[in-house]
């Protein structure tokens, strides 16, 4: 089944200016037709940089790329596309306001005279969409789930004639079942002779799905091997990690910190949350799990004060906070990590310092009489970033020069550093490498001795790894509570949700 080599990279190098970061120091890689290739590596290893180079988004400083044995030089994504190479971004590239149909054909509309030839277009997409169970073509993309959006991207790539698919952390925002479906899709593409390269932080997944694994470490290829010759331990070593068990500390359960009663939230006519009540005590890390967007993320937005519920009350340490502003809630010791990292959790225009100081700048001793003490702030932020191992050259650099994982660490550092009483987080460990995931898990365990956490996720693995108790959401309703004893493995969650719906 495995075919000939389509793409080959030789000693590819890339340095980013003005920071001078050497993202790639010499990477070798080849992709074969009809095979799945997993790209692994710690945060900041250069994975994203590599696929962006392959897709023509950025140019390498040195090294060669061969497609079908001929040297190529991509200047734009279009050049890469012409050779059938398409990158599916982690933050997907769909125009949310348009329909599925419009997104699929944008830029290559079949036409009759001056107008869109709808019939012809539908014919083209027909067998593809039947095979892939594509959702209705006329729905707007905003209303779709992450998995559906991803599928649209892949279908579009195929419509464009892609034979090499590059996927940057495709599973980072998918739920378990969505992941399954994605892998089925990839398998069928593979049978049709596509070459697939995907980036992931989940080693087991990589070994299960991929035919071949390549590990990057600090911009260099340190391992490239058929999966049949590999085991997890070898890969972990190659990545430079120590393998370790996920910690779980038992602490005395304390007073009730958060009590939510009968929260109902609407968005337009849609009922997003339907009379949700729950209670969290100090010493508990509670997961809010739903297969897709089942209201668990919206609940956190309600708790921090971003969304106003139609009815219901929120009590924090027995105090009614339903009407408090976001600032007042944060001051009480509530921390929040939003779902959209790039648009909500960060100010991409700002520097690392400006992003890191946002939770403390208002407080004494950093601000006195409205006057900022920059020197003190810098010291403080240095300490914070160091503790959370955020790799930076200078905190004055623009924040967008950090890699995806380092951005995520920065966000978590900012929210966790001061030991919040109530830690609200959406998908806190997605996009983090195993090492950092482990570290975050440890921090969350420590948190229990003075506070509690609410973790909204659609990743059973994450809920399982971080929480002592999981609340299962389905379509805006709280369906069921699972306790520690029942949490034997992640699949329990998935199968349970299946039963409920």
């Amino acid at each position, binding site marked *: 089944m495995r075919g000939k080599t389509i793409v080959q990279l030789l000693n590819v190098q890339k340095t980013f200016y003005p920071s001078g970061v050497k993202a790639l120091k010499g990477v070798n890689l080849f992709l074969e037709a009809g095979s799945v290739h997993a790209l692994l590596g710690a945060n900041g290893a250069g994975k994203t940089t590599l696929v962006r180079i392959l897709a023509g*988004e950025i140019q390498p400083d040195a090294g060669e790329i061969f497609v079908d044995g001929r040297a190529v030089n991509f200047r734009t994504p279009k050049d890469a596309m012409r050779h059938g190479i398409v990158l599916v971004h982690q933050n997907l590239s769909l125009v949310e306001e348009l329909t599925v149909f419009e997104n699929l054909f*944008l*830029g290559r*509309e079949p036409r009759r005279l001056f*107008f869109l030839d709808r019939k012809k277009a539908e014919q083209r997409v027909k067998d593809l969409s039947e095979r892939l169970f594509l959702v209705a073509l006329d729905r707007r993309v905003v209303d779709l789930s992450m998995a559906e959006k991803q599928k649209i991207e892949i279908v579009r790539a195929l419509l464009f004639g892609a034979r090499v698919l590059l996927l940057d952390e495709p599973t980072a925002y998918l739920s378990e079942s969505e992941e399954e479906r994605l892998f089925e899709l990839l398998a069928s593409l593979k049978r049709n002779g596509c070459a697939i390269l995907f980036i992931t932080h989940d080693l087991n997944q990589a070994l299960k799905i991929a035919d071949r694994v390549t590990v990057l470490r600090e911009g260099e290829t340190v391992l490239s091997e058929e999966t049949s010759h590999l085991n997890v331990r070898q890969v972990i070593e190659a990545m430079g990690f120590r393998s370790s068990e996920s910690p779980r500390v038992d602490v005395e359960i304390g007073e009730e910190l958060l009590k939510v009663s009968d929260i109902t939230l609407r968005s337009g006519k849609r009922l997003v949350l339907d009379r949700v009540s729950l209670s969290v005590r100090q010493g508990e890390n509670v997961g809010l799990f739903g297969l897709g967007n089942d209201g668990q993320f919206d609940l956190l937005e309600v708790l921090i004060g971003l969304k106003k519920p139609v009815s219901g009350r929120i009590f924090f340490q027995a105090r009614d906070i339903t009407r408090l502003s976001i600032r007042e809630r944060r001051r009480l010791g509530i921390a929040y990590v939003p779902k959209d990292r790039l648009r909500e959790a960060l100010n991409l225009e700002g520097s690392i310092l400006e992003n890191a100081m946002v939770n403390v700048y208002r407080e004494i001793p950093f601000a006195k009489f409205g006057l900022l003490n920059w020197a003190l702030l810098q010291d403080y932020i240095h300490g914070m970033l160091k503790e959370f191992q955020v790799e930076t050259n200078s905190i004055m650099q623009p924040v967008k020069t950090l890699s995806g994982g380092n951005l995520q660490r920065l966000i978590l550092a900012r929210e966790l550093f001061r030991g919040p009483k109530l830690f609200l987080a959406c998908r806190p460990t997605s996009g983090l490498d195993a090492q950092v995931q482990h570290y975050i898990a440890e921090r969350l365990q420590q948190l229990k001795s003075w506070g509690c956490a609410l973790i909204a996720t659609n990743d059973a693995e994450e809920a399982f790894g971080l929480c002592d108790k999981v609340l299962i959401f389905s379509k805006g309703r709280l369906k069921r509570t699972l306790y520690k004893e029942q949490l034997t493995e992640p699949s329990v969650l998935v199968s349970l949700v299946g039963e409920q719906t």
Partner: protein
Amino acid sequence: MLTQLLRSSISSTLPIVVAALGASFTQRVGKLNIAIEGTMLVSCFVSVYVAAGSNSWLLGVTAAMTSSCLLSLFVWLIHRYLGANIFVTGLGVNLVASGLVVFLSSTLLGSKGTIFFEEMPSIPVLRLEVLEHSEPLRTLLFDYNVLELIAMLVVFVSWLITKTPLGLRMKAIGKNETVARQLGLNVDWTRIWSFIFCGLFCGLAGSMLSLPLGLFVAGMTNNRGWLALVAAVLGGDNPLGVLGVSMVLGFSVALSNRLQLFTTLPAEIVLSIPLILTLGVVLIYSILKTGERGRSP
């Protein structure tokens, strides 16, 4: 009386809707051109000047469209290739235009005030020999001059354009430029097209203000460019929405013209009436819209 008011509101709607559609093209690609007022003003001048000089209304309109196309492209080029802020550049063009027309009319025609052109070519009016017995009804339904008919055609064509691949691309570029680029759309050219449309439409709109009257005066657009912008913003992506808002604004302009004729309000107040009514429209429209959808931050 009522039919007269209706007829005159149609006449005042047409230039507004044409300019608004031009602006809405630039809005659709995410680069709202706020130089409409100035562009229209320049076209007002160019169209009468050329028409009077060449004794051809068609040449006048063509010249107006060309000049306003150039101005519109100027805004785009300065923004795109010199990285200037598009609103600021647009404002600059408005300022240049108001200086330019006075400068031109004083150097070319020797007057800074109202200039009447004696020998203006008349604009053909399409007269149908129907409804002879009911004069008011006929003026309302027929009796439109060629410019007005073209304007109606323009409304229809703009609507058609939204249905074409070009329209789809414009929308996609406006909503998410990065994605459009990643998909290999020619973002720059699509935007240039929309600025060309904007220029052509504003040129037509400007001619419609000055040609039928055969005169020019520096304040003759009287903020109608800004009204058109409001119509474009409120109407959003939908040309029919733009048409709807323009009709309301056209009605308010017609009404304020009536007031000027039949009452003795001071000039300053009359000038501000369309603006005030427009603000009222904005208010009502937005209240209706937000009431329907619920507020969003």
